[in-house]
């Protein structure tokens, strides 16, 4: 799931201030907390109210898209509306915002959210946690299934550092677990401290450099061909 946080209404309003007809798009994909049709509708109402306080009239429509990051789904969902609106506000993660800008490139799509991380709901708690940083060099096989890249504030490959106290991390004021103590406990439980003792070489950051590209089969996406045709 992509963990997101909605921006302040005033911030979103600033983005769409020059426009009077906007389309608000929820996303039914992996965005957490959910940002679907009801959230899109509420955002529309709030923006309309905000516009009214400034003496402006704002026309809006709320829709939701199955997955904004899927080029074909995004394109077929948004294109019927493009000609009737001046701008789009997306309630997806950053991927959805970029995708709508690409598949509906007649108008601008603005982000209503800040995208924080790929994560899951923290077991038994009302919070989300990042378990994987998609670093492109998976260490989980040697760390008992606990990721030190996402879980350690210093991304250490050979932890723990001196900032751990009673299994808690110095970052966050000793409230969050030290990933390396968790790794130690897991490996000890399975009698695999041999893995803990192994020295791990420095990471190859080419796998995690931005912007990231990965070549995929040509028939997986039609964006490239479309562009070529247009050209």
């Amino acid at each position, binding site marked *: 799931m992509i963990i997101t946080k909605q921006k302040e209404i005033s911030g979103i309003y600033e983005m769409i201030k020059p426009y009077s007809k906007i389309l608000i798009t929820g996303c039914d994909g992996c965005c957490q907390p959910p940002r679907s049709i009801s959230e899109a509708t509420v955002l529309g109402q709030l923006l309309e109210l905000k516009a009214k306080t400034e003496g402006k009239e704002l026309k809006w429509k709320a829709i939701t898209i199955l997955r904004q990051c899927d080029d074909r789904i995004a394109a077929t969902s948004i294109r019927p509306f493009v000609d009737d609106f001046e701008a789009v506000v997306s309630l997806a993660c950053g991927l959805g915002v970029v995708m709508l800008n690409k598949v509906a490139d007649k108008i601008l799509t603005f982000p209503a959210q800040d995208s924080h991380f790929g994560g899951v709901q923290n077991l038994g708690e009302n919070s989300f946690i990042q378990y994987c940083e998609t670093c492109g060099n998976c260490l989980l096989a040697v760390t008992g299934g606990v990721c030190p890249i996402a879980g350690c*504030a*210093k991304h250490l490959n*050979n932890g*723990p550092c001196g900032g751990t106290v009673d299994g808690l991390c110095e970052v*966050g004021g000793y409230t969050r677990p030290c990933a390396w103590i968790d790794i*130690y406990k897991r490996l000890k439980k399975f009698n695999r401290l041999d893995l*803990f003792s192994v*020295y791990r070489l*420095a990471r190859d950051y080419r796998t995690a450099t931005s912007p990231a590209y990965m070549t995929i089969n040509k028939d997986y996406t039609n964006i490239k061909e479309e562009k070529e045709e247009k050209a």
Partner: protein
Amino acid sequence: MAKRPAYSKLCKAIEAGHFVFTGELEPKKILEEGMEEVIHSAKEMKKTNRLIAANVTDGPQGDAYMCSMVPSYLVQQKAEIEAVWQVAVRDRNRVALFGDVLGGAVLGLKNILVLTGDHTALGDNKRARPAYDIDSTQFCELLKKMIDEGTDYAGKEITDGKIEMNYGCVANPNAVGDYMEPEILKVGRKVEQGIDFIQTQTAFDIDVAKNFLNELSRYKVPVLLGLFPMKSYGIAWYFDNYIPGVSVPKDLLKALKTAEKENKGNKPAKYAALDKVNVEFFKPFIKEIKENSKASGIHCMAVEYERLFQPLLGEYPEYAKEFY
């Protein structure tokens, strides 16, 4: 691999069998004037004839301070006492670390203390992005490659000369109970990467310290036990509350507080009372460590507290003289 020669005076003194002492200098947000004070501290350390080297810290607590390389050089030049150049991997990637070590080698620095470094989230520039490109163990590997093989991390050769340096890592004696084993195993990885010495975080409990030193003895690497005499109650309180994993014994805190309270308004008497508290606590501590543990020395983190060295260490031989 054959054992690396002792290039630094610190390692030579340990090798010669001396029970060594080192001090600590903390360059903060300073320019020339502050630098003079740091050098003055270093000169006072040298005067004791018992401190073989002075650590120069690298942005402790994640704060933005003067770099550690230049003060290390100036201390060696002007105070003529060897520096233990602390280098944290928090602020520099492998490219910058390599470049800095080459620069430090040309400046004649002989000891590096490898640190991960407190996270920038704890420091005074909380919005900073920390580097942590390589971790402290990997920095040890980089130093091994530079010193023993004459290359950078990627194996590209250093074109002229040989780097003659020794490097050490830190360990935390306050990792007790279930948390000691991961700490000891972690040090083991650094031993594998060729460290010449280990310097510990500060210890206040003699039994905990001795137990930790005993565990470390399996690696057969010299260990300097960290001690932290506190020149005021305020520093002790800060240390107790803000330094990871360190808790100052309640009795010691109370004694420092009383020493300050009873001598309010009378500076010399206050200093004497504070020094007395520190000497009474640390003198027997050092004696016990020297006589009944495998430690090779004491790292005395008495920053800007040079006047304590004489009463604290006065009874030990002036071994450092022959190395200066």
